[in-house]
């Protein structure tokens, strides 16, 4: 507090004192202003100090309102010599516009002397020369009304100095004195300086106030932003309440428009502004329309007094129901994306004003000089409150915070929803994977089962396949498979070997070409003529004999084969051919044919004679010719005997060769056998005039005596038959010992039985001899060097063949040596056995 010092020198007129007091005042003022930033305090101190300095009854600060009226905001009154005016309002008419403009433009100071009826005017800014400040005071007569006004206030002298702030008339520094008083230039100068200091103080305080407001706004924004942004959950309700409170609203709401077609709007309400019967107010068509037409470019709707604007009825009903008077609507949008509305409303307020006098334009006294300052209290009910620029700015800032937060929240929601979708997807996928895993496990089980089955089947198949392979490989017959075109799909080793190829060489080859498949007469088939072709085309099974295949070396062989179609689901896909080489069979057949032919001939020949002879006799053609009849009988008898011998021989040789005639081996002496044979043939030899010479050898041997005698007689018979009359036939024998060194050099190594001693029989004649090329074949059946003589001698052509069979059955050998024209020697050996 500033000490009030009424004892300070305050008499005007003493120049040096005044100067001193002025400096003191100024110094204190400056200190005050420096020390405080509270304007009311500064103003209060100022009026006190100035009153003490001027020593007047009242010093006050009058502040103008925007409408030109004003209020006493600071006052210092000395000892109640004047009535206090603090807090009182004065109508704008009391200080007319011209006067206010003079205060502003000319910075006019006025000094009124009521008694002297003069007013001293001292413009600080001269119209002629604004740059030179002056404290000159020009006195002139004062307006009587002014005198009356002051007088009615009880003032006889006054000093008024304008207080400017930012080139505006902020207010007035006024000194009133109930006594006449002169104002010196020095006083004027000091008080002017005080006014200037006040201007500075006001500027500073205003700045401070602005800063404070700004700080408050920022704090509000921060608080709201904190509610909006601090957590994952948007605290819109709290933010709205803070906003409504900061804007001094009675209530408000936030409307967040639905972001997707099926969503509903989100609405937060503060102070009973809920949903109407017809849904959200923001969704009414008239709302948007009204904002567009009456609001500020659609971005915001600022309505300080709803009674002053046209309102669609449906909105008006809602506003009225809430007793709404002022409304602030901020359109929430983020980068042109509409999000919703932030709305804050105010209700009407009652305003009390204390007037220094009644400003009634209709009062006829208005034009009259003001004579009374009776204090008058005015109470205005249901007044609208203007939205200040600061509030509007704050609401916009808050709106953008809301917009940002809502946008972020929506993004967050979208991300969350995406996350939820993703999570659901993942869950579904996990489920699906589990199902797949279960299926996989089952599948695996099935696969294992099937694998086991397959393995079993495979094992069986392999065994079967191996069996088939073995069968195919072991088969003596040639077996091959063909595809529809006649290409070899498989062939067994026997077939490949018969043809002179390797199995692999033949696969995929055209069999028909490879073997030059030919007919029995060696004419090649065309592929279309080939019976196998007909198997492939028509599925006919072909049994063919005597066709011809050619080997790799060009040689051919007769074959017999069966070709069978291979069918799959009724379709012919190929053929399998089984063939065999029938060369040997053909040869045997040929030999059989020849044999039959010979036997046939040998049998038919005697039969022809018998039949003719008996036929002639039977018919009686020869009954007159007894000689011919006799001859015919002889022919018949001889040929019958020949036939019997032939049949016996044939049967004999067959039995010996087939092993049916077993050798009855008994120990006997070779000499006995030789003598018996000689005796048997002696008659025949004598008849043929042959000298038979037998040299028996006494050696024990184990043989079938009858068969050996048969062999010896056969050979002797032969020799006698072919020997010329008068010649000699020799039968001799000797023991052959393998240790004996007389075995001729160069002879082939002796066979096993030659290692044991054996007996060698020799039958030698001086007949015609046998050609060398026939020495082997004479032992074959029906082979004779010259058949004509044998027929006379009753030979069957089987004698030597029988001899060979008997000797071989005994483990011996038989052969002949001969020189044409000199004679032949037949040899045969019989083993003597180790015991001998």
């Amino acid at each position, binding site marked *: 507090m500033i000490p009030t010092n009424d004892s300070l020198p305050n008499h005007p007129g003493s120049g040096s004192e005044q100067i001193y007091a002025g400096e003191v005042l100024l110094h204190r003022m400056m200190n005050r202003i420096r020390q405080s930033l509270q304007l009311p305090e500064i103003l209060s101190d100022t009026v006190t100090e100035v009153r003490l300095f001027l020593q007047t009854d009242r010093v006050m600060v009058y502040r103008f309102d925007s409408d030109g009226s004003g209020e006493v905001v600071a006052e210092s009154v000395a000892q109640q010599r004047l009535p206090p005016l603090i807090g009182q309002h004065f109508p704008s008419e009391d200080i007319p516009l011209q006067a206010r403009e003079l205060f502003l433009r000319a910075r006019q100071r006025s000094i009124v002397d009521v008694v002297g009826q003069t007013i001293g005017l001292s413009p600080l800014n001269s119209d002629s020369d604004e740059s030179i400040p002056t404290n000159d005071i020009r006195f002139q007569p004062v307006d009587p009304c002014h005198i009356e006004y002051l007088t009615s206030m009880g003032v006889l002298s006054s000093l008024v100095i304008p207080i400017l702030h930012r080139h505006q008339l902020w207010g007035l520094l006024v000194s009133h004195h109930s006594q006449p008083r002169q104002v010196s230039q020095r006083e004027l100068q000091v008080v002017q300086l005080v006014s200037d200091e006040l201007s500075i103080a006001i500027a500073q305080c205003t700045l401070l106030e602005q800063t404070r407001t700004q700080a408050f706004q920022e704090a509000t924004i921060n608080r709201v932003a904190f509610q909006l942004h601090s957590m994952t959950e948007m605290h819109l309700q709290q933010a709205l309440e803070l906003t409504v409170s900061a804007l001094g609203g009675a209530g408000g709401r936030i409307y967040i428009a639905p972001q997707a077609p099926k969503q509903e709007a989100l609405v937060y309400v503060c102070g009973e502004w809920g949903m109407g019967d017809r849904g959200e107010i923001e969704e009414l068509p008239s709302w948007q329309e009204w904002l567009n037409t009456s609001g500020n470019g659609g971005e915001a709707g600022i309505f300080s007094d709803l009674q002053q604007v046209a309102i669609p009825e449906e909105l008006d009903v809602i506003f009225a129901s809430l007793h709404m008077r002022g409304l602030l609507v901020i359109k929430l949008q983020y980068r042109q994306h509409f999000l919703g509305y932030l709305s804050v409303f105010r209700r009407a307020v009652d305003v009390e004003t204390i007037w220094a006098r009644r400003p009634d334009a209709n009062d006829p006294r208005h034009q009259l000089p003001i004579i009374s300052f009776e204090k008058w209290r005015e109470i205005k009910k249901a007044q609208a409150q203007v939205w200040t620029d600061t509030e509007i700015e704050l609401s916009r800032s808050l709106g953008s915070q809301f917009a940002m937060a809502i946008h972020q929240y929506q993004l967050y929601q979208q991300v969350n929803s995406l996350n939820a979708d993703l999570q659901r997807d993942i869950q579904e996928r996990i489920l699906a994977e589990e199902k797949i895993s279960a299926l996989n496990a089952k599948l695996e089980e099935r696969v294992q089962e099937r694998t086991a089955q397959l393995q079993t089947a495979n094992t069986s198949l392999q065994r079967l396949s191996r069996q088939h392979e073995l069968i195919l490989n072991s088969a003596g017959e040639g077996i091959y498979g063909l595809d529809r075109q006649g290409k070899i799909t498989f062939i067994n080793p026997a077939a490949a070997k018969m043809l002179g190829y390797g199995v692999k060489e033949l696969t995929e080859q055209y069999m028909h070409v490879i073997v030059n498949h030919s007919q029995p007469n060696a004419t090649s088939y065309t592929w279309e003529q080939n019976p196998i072709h007909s198997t492939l085309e028509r599925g006919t099974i072909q049994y063919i004999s005597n066709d011809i295949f050619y080997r790799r070396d060009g040689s051919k062989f007769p074959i017999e084969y069966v070709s069978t179609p291979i069918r799959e689901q009724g379709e012919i896909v190929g053929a399998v051919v089984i063939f065999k080489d029938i060369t040997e069979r053909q040869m045997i057949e040929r030999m059989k044919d020849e044999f*039959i032919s010979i036997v046939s001939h040998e049998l038919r020949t005697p039969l022809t004679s018998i039949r003719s002879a008996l036929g002639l006799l039977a018919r009686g053609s020869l009954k007159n010719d007894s000689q011919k009849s006799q001859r015919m009988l002889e022919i018949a008898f001889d040929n019958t005997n020949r036939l019997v011998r032939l049949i016996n021989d044939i049967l004999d040789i067959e039995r010996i060769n087939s092993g049916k005639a077993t050798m009855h081996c008994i120990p006997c002496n070779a000499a006995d056998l030789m003598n018996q044979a000689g005796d048997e043939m002696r008659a025949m030899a004598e008849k043929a005039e042959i000298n038979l010479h037998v040299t028996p050898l006494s050696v024990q041997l184990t043989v079938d005596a009858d068969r050996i005698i048969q062999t010896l007689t056969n050979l002797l018979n032969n020799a006698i038959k072919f020997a010329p009359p008068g010649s000699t036939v020799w039968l001799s024998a000797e023991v052959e010992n393998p240790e004996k060194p007389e075995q001729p050099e160069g002879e082939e190594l002796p066979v096993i039985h030659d290692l044991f001693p054996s007996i060698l029989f020799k039958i030698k004649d001086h007949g015609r001899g046998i050609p060398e090329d026939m020495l082997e074949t004479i032992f074959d059946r029906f082979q004779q060097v010259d058949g004509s003589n044998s027929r006379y001698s009753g030979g069957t052509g089987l004698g030597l063949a029988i001899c060979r069979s008997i000797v071989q059955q005994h483990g011996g050998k038989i052969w002949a040596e001969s020189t044409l024209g000199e004679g032949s020697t037949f040899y045969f050996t019989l083993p003597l056995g180790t015991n001998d």
Partner: protein
Amino acid sequence: MTNKRILIIDDERDIRQATQICLEVSGDWEVLTAASGREGLVKAATEHPDAILLDVMMPDMDGLTTLSNLQANPTTQHIPVILLTAKAQAAEQRYFMQLGVAAVITKPYDPFTLSDQVVQALARELGNG
């Protein structure tokens, strides 16, 4: 009218004798015989028989060789030859028929019809000739 002459060529003596008697008693045949192919060729060329009865299987020179010799000799080639064979198989018979013989008679022939068979063969040969 003189008897027709026929030459029998066969190495079997019994067959020659029986066939000779058979032809002589059953018809008006004058029969000549030969015991081998060589002998037969000589007799055919010198005696000019009206027909030859030729055995196929003979030692030394067999019937077929004898036949080709007869057919090659201008003096004997016109004489009809009847083959007398013990080879009774059909294939052999067909083969023989292709050799330009008048007939093939299989042993043992029927002594009662032999003469007729020969006559018919000659008649056929005459007709063809």
